[in-house]
């Protein structure tokens, strides 16, 4: 850090510390954090000690609670408890990887468009609009089938279809911030374009981007679940979406094999969304009056 920031008065708490303080007092957000951390713990435990979710262990469609199976068994007699433990890992991994990719593309494109303006902005926004015209899930399905499903292709496909919103948001922030005085000041002391974009503007654009990134993770998880539900996930990896898809022919005979994995997906995305809302409130205290 520069000399300037080190000599800044100590009494003012940093914006990040202030946001954290508000976040901690926000009960739904803390509930979301707790749920998310528990789900993460279950998923990590499951992928280490969960066992083989494809193994047939008991009579098919054993109701939950019977014969020692807390969640029952599915249409083939596979333990749902094992599936639930193991099946979260691909969902969360793909969700996280896809979100990172989509944020990377979105922020880069949005920042370049917002900062340079003019024909660069025009061209990049046309490309963004083009991607918004393609129905995202359909496009992701096409990508996954053309390039054969694996965790890498699925994450890439989801990342590639999700970035336009991040790009638009980043562009709007950059357009707003590039006119501010501290950006002019940075330019006056000789900072180059790259430095201004990534070291001056981006840090100041971060709060809304962090909120949107959190929500992007949730959407990416739903995407992965949807693809796996359709049978387009990695066939060798058990996932929550795949469990729902595999058992959906039998919903009229057994409700539990589809209900529990869906609840797991819902709880994960729900917790992410609570965290996102909490971050939003923490970064924009003014909005809370609304």
């Amino acid at each position: 850090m520069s000399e300037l920031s080190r000599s800044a008065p100590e009494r003012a708490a940093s914006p990040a510390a202030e946001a954290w303080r508000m976040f901690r007092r926000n009960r739904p957000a803390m509930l979301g954090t707790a749920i998310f951390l528990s789900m993460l713990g279950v998923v990590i435990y499951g992928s280490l000690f969960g066992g083989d979710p494809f193994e047939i262990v008991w009579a098919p469609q054993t109701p939950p609670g019977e014969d020692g199976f807390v969640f029952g068994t599915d249409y083939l007699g596979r333990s749902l408890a094992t599936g639930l433990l193991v099946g979260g890992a691909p969902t969360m991994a793909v969700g996280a990887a896809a979100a990172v990719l989509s944020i990377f593309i979105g922020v880069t494109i949005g920042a370049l468009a917002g900062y340079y303006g003019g024909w660069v902005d025009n061209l990049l926004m046309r490309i963004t609009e083009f991607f918004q015209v393609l129905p995202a899930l359909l496009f992701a399905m096409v990508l996954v089938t053309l390039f054969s499903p694996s965790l890498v292709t699925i994450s890439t496909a989801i990342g590639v279809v999700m970035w336009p919103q991040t790009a638009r948001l980043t562009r709007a922030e950059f357009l707003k911030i590039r006119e501010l005085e501290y950006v002019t000041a940075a330019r006056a002391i000789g900072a180059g374009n790259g430095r201004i974009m990534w070291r001056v503007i981006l840090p100041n654009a971060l709060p809304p981007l962090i909120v949107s990134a959190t929500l992007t993770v949730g959407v990416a998880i739903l995407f992965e679940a949807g693809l796996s539900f359709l049978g387009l996930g990695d066939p060798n990896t058990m996932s929550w979406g795949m469990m729902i898809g595999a058992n959906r022919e039998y919903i009229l005979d057994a409700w539990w094999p589809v209900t529990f994995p869906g609840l797991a997906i819902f709880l994960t995305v729900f917790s992410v969304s609570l965290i996102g809302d909490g971050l939003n409130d923490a970064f924009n205290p003014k909005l809370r009056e609304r």
Partner: protein
Amino acid sequence: MDTVVYVARRLFYGLMLMFFVVVLNFVLIRLAPGDPAEVIAGEMGGTTQEILADIRATYGLDKPVATQLAIYLGQVAHGDLGKSFFFDQPVARLIGTRIGATILLVLTAQFLSILIGVVMGVFAARKPNGVVSALVAVFSTLGYALPVFWTGIMLIIVFASWLPIFPVEGMRSARLEGGGFVHVLDVLHHLVLPAVTLAIIFLAQYARLARTSMIEVLGADYIRTARAKGVPERRVVFHHALRNAVLPILTVAGLQFGNLISGALLVETVFNWPGMGTLAFDSILRRDYPTVMGILIIGAAMVVVANILTDLGYRLADPRIRTEGGRR
């Protein structure tokens, strides 16, 4: 700007977008591993040399890539989306038999979610800290987090299996006697669960947006003026405020169309609704690429058309845009 000029520009821009969608399709097939002819024929097995030779001739696969692209663009421009080797039918005809069901589902869901969302939002906005406001907040978080295909399955279990009120799947009953009206009712009966499933996810967003936008508008000076003049509160809310508050909802509704089609894809699969979504699902499982690519083109075209219609609707709803002549 003159509305005619505006429409012409929008149409031209839409055509440009479609041109690039078709080019993207072309590039994707070439990027896929393997011989394009085999990719187009599908990986069903039983692909004969004759079929492959036929495909190479139709798509000009022995010619330079630029010529291939020109041939492909020419085909699509003439409404020829290729031939599905699995269904043994032209793709355009296949999609033609399915597109109506998808449009019916998507528009019903869109209508339901906007209508209910706006009503909820308006009630919430009148008491920003009241019960309805809290409900809208809870609903919007739920709507964001519910996997749409799972919601559909849960609705089937509850409202078609436990309480057999609605049919489990499909769009029409197999044997039905009576005139046209009975058939219309039958389709509507089948439509309820899929449309509600799809509406639930979007409903929450519209409710939240309507609430924020109403609160903002109700704080405006002209609302205070209207109240001061003694305009009845109902008229202030529904006539003066709502008209301005729906504008951002229109914008979002247009942008949501792509997501709506993505959602419809999953919902159709769950309910076996005979639209483009089930067709896309069937053809993807069979690696029937001409059909899949055709659906991608038509899906994109539907979004382009919806965006143009939304922009026109926006111009009708907000006279200021027409006079200012600026593009948003």
